[in-house]
């Protein structure tokens, strides 16, 4: 059973990935997020996904984390394949299974002519899922190899307002506590006879029963915490210092340069290619670029 802690808490080790500057990690994550949105070529998307997965090898992640990653990827890819198998709207498409027949009263009409599983949609979904899978894998790699304090330090150095960073630190710090409280309240509710998984109004009633005591604790805690941090001169000065200074190594600078340059280049080429395919702008000088985008991006 995968527990929430196995997802939420980083594994601190001394590897090349762990040593990376959090700013480099965040910039790389943002750059890769833009790259996956720009790409359309399945082979290139697969290479990028495998490259990201390859990052877990030097990070020496524990088995539980790898299992979690595998489980999440499986769910994600399955979900995208399933939804696209249903909604695929390109030709050719081959019906392999009928979920709702067009003749079925009400549902046939409601779904505008039935609901089918299309063979080509399954393949299309698998390819498109690579985008989400790449971002999810890289995000988890970054999250699992970075202490939240370092991550937030990195965000602050990237001009995220300190107060916001503080709020996120607070949220991260209290996440295990809130999860534990929710689990306790659910256990108590069950003992009282509630069924948390009962569909419909029962779920809402249970949610209200769980959220009220959990949030009441949050409200109480907020008061105490506010007094505590104000007594430590929170927001007393416009600028503040940090115990741990972040320094970018040559490796970090190289990673930032490569990923950002790659993202800018790929996005620029794809914009030009899309302008061409949309019959908006064409230049004979860019024919090589169009060909490159068509075959590799």
């Amino acid at each position, binding site marked *: 059973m995968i527990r929430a802690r196995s997802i939420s808490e980083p594994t601190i080790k001394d590897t090349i990935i762990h040593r990376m500057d959090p700013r480099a990690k965040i910039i790389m994550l943002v750059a890769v997020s833009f790259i996956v949105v720009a790409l359309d070529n399945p082979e290139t998307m697969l290479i990028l996904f495998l490259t990201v997965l390859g990052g877990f090898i030097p990070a020496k992640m524990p088995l539980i984390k790898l299992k979690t990653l595998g489980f999440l990827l499986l769910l994600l890819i399955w979900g995208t394949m399933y939804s696209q198998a249903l*909604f695929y709207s390109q030709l050719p498409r081959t019906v392999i299974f009928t979920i709702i027949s067009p003749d079925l009263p009400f549902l046939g009409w409601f779904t505008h002519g039935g609901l089918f599983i299309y063979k080509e949609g399954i393949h299309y979904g698998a390819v498109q899922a690579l985008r989400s899978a790449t971002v999810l894998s890289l995000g988890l790699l970054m999250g699992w190899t970075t202490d939240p304090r370092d991550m937030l330090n990195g*965000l602050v150095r990237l001009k995220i307002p300190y107060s*916001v960073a503080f709020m996120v630190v607070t949220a991260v710090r209290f*996440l295990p506590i*809130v999860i534990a409280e929710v689990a306790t309240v659910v256990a108590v509710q069950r003992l009282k006879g509630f069924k948390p998984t009962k569909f419909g109004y029962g779920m809402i009633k249970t949610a209200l029963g769980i959220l009220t005591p959990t949030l009441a604790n949050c409200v109480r805690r907020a008061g105490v915490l506010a007094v505590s941090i104000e007594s430590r001169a929170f927001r007393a000065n416009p600028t503040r210092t940090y115990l741990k200074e972040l320094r970018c190594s040559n490796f970090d600078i190289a990673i930032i340069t490569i990923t950002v340059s790659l993202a800018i280049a790929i996005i620029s080429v794809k914009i030009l290619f899309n302008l061409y395919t949309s019959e908006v702008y064409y230049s004979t000088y860019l*024919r090589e670029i169009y060909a490159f985008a068509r075959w590799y991006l």
Partner: protein
Amino acid sequence: MKPILLALVLVLLTLPLSTAQDVGFAPEEMFSFSVQVPYGAKEGGLAVQGSNLSAYLFVESFQHGDMDVRVHLDLPDEFEVKDETVQMFRLHTEYDDWYRFIDFHVPPDVPCGIYTINTTAYIDFGDQHEIIERKTTLRVASKNEISDMISIVSVVIPSDEDGVGDPSRPENSIILQEASPFINKIKKIAGMGDSNEDVRVSYVGVEIENNGDEAVPLIVSYEILDIKTMQEIGEFKPTLMGMSSKTFSYSNIILPARSSKVVGLPIYTTDSVMGGEYLLRARVTVTGSNWDAATSDNKITAISRNWTSVVVSLVAFFLSITTIGIFVSRSNEIMNSFKTRHLVMISLFGTASFAAVNIPMTFLWEISHAVFGPFSFLFTGIFYEVILYMLIVAAVVLIPKPGVVFLLLMVRYLLNGIVLGHFNPVFLLSYSVNAIILEIMLYAAGTTRGNMDKLKTGLACGVADAISQYVSFSLWMVLYRLFYSDWYLKANILIDGFIYTFIGAWLGIKLGSKLKKVVE
């Protein structure tokens, strides 16, 4: 003098005779008479065994006055004539004309070879009687001979009206029109829309070559087929001005001997055409026959773009960038307007929303998809809408100020990124748009100004989330190239976006009121 006078008398006497002789005309000056077998072939024609053809007869008068004409078309006995071969008519004035198509059938078992066709016109004009003969030849060839003679050299998609390829447009592709009813309505309102719903999108250029020694009457056409089933896609042949576009998308040509020609044919489409891969089959048939003398199959891609989603995504992008930019540039001012206790409370509500919604839904989302299929939103909406909005509205009840929703959703997004790795541009834009619209709606409803009206707050949240849902789906469709059916989008927006959110907001006020007692 006598001889001179005698000569003069002789001239005067012979003058009426010469004048009378000048009244008669040469036949070619009296009228024009032409024969084309088959129609269109000005020289020797060509027919394939088993074809139905028409001979074309044309007569035009160049004289004033009644001209009686009898035309006799003498077709070889081997041919089956379907009309009268003898035609009689009268032309009344100068440039009055007459024409007829005489249909005949060339049976499949007719021996191949060159057949001579004689046509005779008998003309009575006043006292003048003329007979004119025209001799044409028709070569009857077998299918094999025609196949060797006629070939499709190339098919260019897209091309211009003349069939010439345009390198500025992607090869073997056609760009489909916007399929969005929303954009179509705007176009119509702005007067930019085509009054006809069916729109021509492109041209295909077909180059045909004739290696034979006769001019060949040909029909060049195309059909677009499903690449798997090879069934013709009707949407590419819509009805235009009350007629099938098949009427417009073919070309009738006479291809001279030893020549080639490029023909441009329009490609039409309707809104219901889907993007994807198709097979465009160019066809060349000899006039009068249904048999394809040459075909050429070409794989084409129909590129469909939902411009509404693209525009919505662009608006969401600029809205988010602007809002985030304003927030970052004025962050001190904004954050200082909140007490430390409020910031802590918002972050804890962010944590609670993350723990109660994001973490369970990471697993339940896909599992519910597997169990409930496309109707899983009825289940997932309980978390994503009811519980989430209970938390958001409860936070607003406790801190009734503009900016609370924005901060709460920002914390939730950053937590989602740091803990679950969901630093995803779609999430960033969705959360931003959701926060902006919700802030505006709650301010308009008075909720963030301290007026806690359950109905107004519920409606504000419902409308805001319905819009956010639409934006979110548009982002997934554009940035992650995913497909969603219209009914699915509408059901999600109505049930999840509006109804569930309304319930969540309603309950959120109740929850907030309870928590307020804790604060007090």
